[in-house]
């Protein structure tokens, strides 16, 4: 879906404007050098990593693969992965789907678009989920839904807060209504977590759209977003072509949705870990609590 998004060639300066369009999977840095999609600077891979995959020149946030995100977020060596063997089947015998999955698996070294597990962040226990934008655009099929649901169930049962980094084009079309129902399945699990009073934090990364935005991504007790991330339900092209409405340039960016009340804060990746740490500490401490 994202590939189809219309790229308008700009003939004018875009001073100070964050990159707003979804990035293709190839945006993930993989070579020795990478080119910034926003300012065009050539950045050495090592340098890029030092800057947590943000451009040292303009601050543009490159996409981050799931293993790197885990590494950036958790205390070193604390990560224990859950359910690494859960993977997709082809329930609708959708033409080409198995090959697509196989290719994504080969390209990413992952079996599914979501990595889940537990670890610590500044010594606070946390259950983590990370969607990998390289894996069929981070789309959610039954396997991803199952992994997320299990992580949520564990969070509820063990009263461990969960932090989920979203990056997804939405529900995986090749699994039809079964993928649609993963929105319901994860939301049902989140209701249990909510009832148990367990903290759920989402971090919106580029892009978070469609069924993922209309389910767990929007259900965080606290919702943070990385700068310039696309966050919305129906994409620009769908809106422009179905109701023929012209949309502002910053439509559905983190900054736009912050102003419209949908996220708590836009947080630069370099400050993200500290903010998550504060959130976890605020929710882990006992303080002025009344007796029952």
């Amino acid at each position, binding site marked *: 879906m994202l590939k189809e998004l219309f790229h308008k060639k700009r003939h004018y300066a875009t001073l100070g404007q964050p990159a707003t369009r979804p990035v293709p999977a190839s945006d993930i840095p993989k070579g020795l050098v990478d080119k910034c999609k926003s300012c065009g600077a050539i950045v050495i891979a090592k340098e890029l990593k030092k800057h947590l995959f943000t451009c040292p020149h303009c601050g543009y946030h490159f996409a981050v693969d799931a293993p790197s995100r885990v590494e950036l977020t958790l205390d070193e060596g604390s990560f224990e992965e859950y359910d690494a063997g859960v993977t997709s089947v082809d329930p609708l015998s959708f033409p080409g789907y198995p090959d697509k999955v196989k290719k994504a698996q080969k390209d990413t070294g992952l079996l599914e678009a979501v990595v889940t597990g537990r670890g610590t962040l500044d010594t606070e226990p946390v259950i983590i989920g990370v969607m990998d934008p390289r894996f069929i655009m981070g789309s959610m099929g039954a396997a991803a839904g199952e992994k997320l649901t299990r992580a949520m169930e564990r969070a509820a049962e063990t009263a461990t807060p969960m932090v989920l980094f979203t990056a997804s084009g939405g529900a995986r079309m090749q699994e039809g209504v079964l993928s649609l129902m993963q929105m319901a399945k994860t939301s049902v699990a989140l209701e249990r977590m*909510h009832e148990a*009073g367990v*903290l759920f934090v989402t971090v919106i990364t580029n892009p978070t759209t469609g069924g993922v935005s209309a389910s767990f991504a*929007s259900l965080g*007790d*606290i919702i943070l977003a990385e700068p310039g991330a696309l966050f919305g339900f129906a994409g620009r092209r769908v809106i422009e072509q179905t109701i023929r409405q012209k949309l502002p340039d910053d439509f559905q960016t983190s900054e736009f949705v*912050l*102003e*419209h*009340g*949908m*996220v*708590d*804060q836009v947080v630069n990746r370099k400050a993200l870990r500290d*903010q998550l740490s*504060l*959130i976890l*500490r*605020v*929710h882990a*401490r*006992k*303080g*002025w*609590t*009344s*007796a*029952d």
Partner: protein
Amino acid sequence: MPTELDFEKPIRDLRTKITELHELMAKSGVDLNGEIAKLEHRMDDLSRDLYEGLTPWQRVQLARQPGRPTTLDYIHGICSEFMELHGDRNFRDDPAVVGGIGLVEGKPITIIGHQKGRDTKENIHRNFGMAHPDGYRKALRLMQQAEKFGRPVVTFIDTAGAYPGMSAEERGQSEAIARNLRVMAGLKVPTLCFVTGEGGSGGALGLGVTDRIFVLEYAWYSVIAPESAAAILWKDSAQGPRAAETMKISARDLKELGIADDVIAEPLGGAQKNPQQMIATVRKKVIETLDELTRLPIAELLAARYDKYRDMGTFVER
């Protein structure tokens, strides 16, 4: 330096004179310390008398002084760490209301309040602290979040009133305020509010149904701003001073009427004369009160909250 009001002129004049004497002494070498001490003494007396004897209208003017600490100043003075949370998850993030989570002496807390600007530009952004429904809905969201995680809620009230305008009406200003009143009545965590400047009407009350109500010494709190009352009652908003007098809107009046649990002393001449001292006083009050309120089981706290509001208002029955 905060701006000063007309009735503060005698003090300002004396201060100018003292400064001049200091300069003269430095230049001429003549010992004027005696003179200076005398003038300083007189200034102290004058200040005390002046601020003791303020009329209700002068208090209203003090409550509106731009140099007074705003909600964000209190928040950052009270919390060792704080994170602002934005948005009503519905339509907009209202800059006229701020809120978030933080730690006070290592204990979690949710703080919410009206936010006025420091200058014209910020005031336009903050809509002069006059909230839309979006602001009340953000507050509601944060209060329910606090309840879910069992941390107390402290609110700061400083608004001339909820925003009266079409955009606010379209989105249900009344509904937003009304819902807050009901939800605050049942929040299963200790709650307290400080009226720090202006407590204007339903816009103030929308953050104000709490276990304890504290009013700063020079703050006002009433059913309507005095100018608006004058406009309605006497068709003349210039008669604000008269309305301020009649309506019993000052902190002391509120204590007498049984609305304020406590009047919080301000630095002489108002919070704007010494914001740090004011913030420290409020911080101490927050900690003391929460220590006290958490000694009660939650059911008793809620019953006491019910009784508090149940008993408001006087009448006779024949």
